[in-house]
């Protein structure tokens, strides 16, 4: 490997890295919001909305992100809905992630035994108090491992953005390999930047999981 080649590539990879991180985290934020809304719709069994959410979750959990992005980026413009590649990346990641987040958050909410809700209500708690003091703290603890796994999964999925011509890390690496044939240097930097992006998240995730575990009741 050539040190000089690597040095000259670093700025290119840095830009791509920032773009990937930006789109990745925006997508995850969207996914999280979507997940919370959908999970509550399922939890409260709101008619019609419940069916819509269930179809959405099944549809997006059972298809690959690459296919979803192709549909949004190349398919929708044919019927008059066209959006930029960056927005498409955020929306695509958000929709995919939303379906995974919904499942994680919902399973947390549903893991709280009904008896706790009933006891809280019979103690005279309002619905707000019930949620704030009884359900949410426990549900959150149960959901955390799932949410952490989803965040890591979604950050990894950002690697398919190159398919919709976003200048992300994969795109840059592929481009440089094609242009100058410095395969090893490009791949080396690609791996390094993905490690920078994901290792802290992975370690932080393990830490958070350990941190919240003690809050579990009766376990």
């Amino acid at each position, binding site marked *: 490997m050539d040190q000089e080649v690597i040095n000259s590539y670093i700025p290119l990879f840095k830009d791509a890295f920032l773009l990937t991180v930006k789109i990745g985290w925006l997508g995850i934020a969207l996914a999280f919001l979507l997940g919370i809304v959908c999970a509550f719709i399922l939890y409260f069994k709101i008619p019609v909305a419940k069916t819509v959410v269930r179809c959405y979750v*099944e*549809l997006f*959990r*059972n*298809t*690959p992100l*690459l*296919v*979803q992005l*192709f*549909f949004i980026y*190349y*398919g*929708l*413009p*044919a*019927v008059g809905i066209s959006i930029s590649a960056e927005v498409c990346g955020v929306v695509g990641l958000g929709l995919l992630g939303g379906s995974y987040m919904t499942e994680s958050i919902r399973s947390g909410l549903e893991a709280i035994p009904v008896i706790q809700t009933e006891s809280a209500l019979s103690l005279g708690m309002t619905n707000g108090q019930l949620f704030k003091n009884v359900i949410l703290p426990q549900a959150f603890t149960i959901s955390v491992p799932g949410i952490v796994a989803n965040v*890591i999964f979604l950050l*990894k*999925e*950002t*690697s*398919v953005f*190159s*398919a919709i011509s976003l200048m992300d890390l*994969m795109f840059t*690496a*592929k481009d440089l*390999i094609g242009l100058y044939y410095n*395969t*090893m240097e490009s*791949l080396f930097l*690609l*791996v390094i930047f*993905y*490690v920078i992006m*994901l*290792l802290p998240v*992975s370690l932080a995730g393990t830490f958070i999981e350990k941190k919240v575990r003690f809050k579990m009741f009766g376990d």
Partner: protein
Amino acid sequence: MGFEVIFKGKNFIRLLSGLGVALRISVISVAISIALGIVIGMLMTLKKPVINAVTRVYLEIVRIMPQMVLLFIVFFGFTKMTGSNLSAELSSIIVFSFWGTAEMADLVRGCMISIPVIQYESSKALGLTRLQTYIYVIIPQIVRRLIPLSINLITRMIKTTSLIMMIGIVEVLKVAQQIIEANRKSAPKAAFGVFAAVFLLYFLACWPISCLSKYLEKKWEN
């Protein structure tokens, strides 16, 4: 809306055979992953420091490296390093097996350590030999927990194989692009219909498998 293009000529058959390529690669990779994953997962429960360290590093690599990056490393890097030619299909099988084995090993390990120690001790107290303990007590429980999870792995594998398009294998997405390009003049809206069809095809391939996994999980819960 461009749906008519799908049924023009042999287009639908071509899309299906494209999906077939992806499915074939995922079936081979899943088979390898399950076999190797069970062995490695069992090794991980042995509590040997060296094995533990190696498998921890292996799992962490798979956990943080996107499959696309691994594909690039094997497909471009290996070729460059050794100067030999590795076909795209073989490199994708290598990568997906590498990834799947780690996932499977983690599942196996999780199931193995979820069996309480008390069951081993009780079997011993009842006079069962080690082999009998495994055959009659431990393995039936592990299998019941493991089967839904490994079926789930199959759907994830199918979804991941959509990436093989990026290293030039002609699978369903690539075929879809070709169909759209070929009909660019006669059906300018084909992109919507064809990609919607691909979307549905993937859904139809994965959804029944996820349902089966969920059903078995519920059925064997206790």
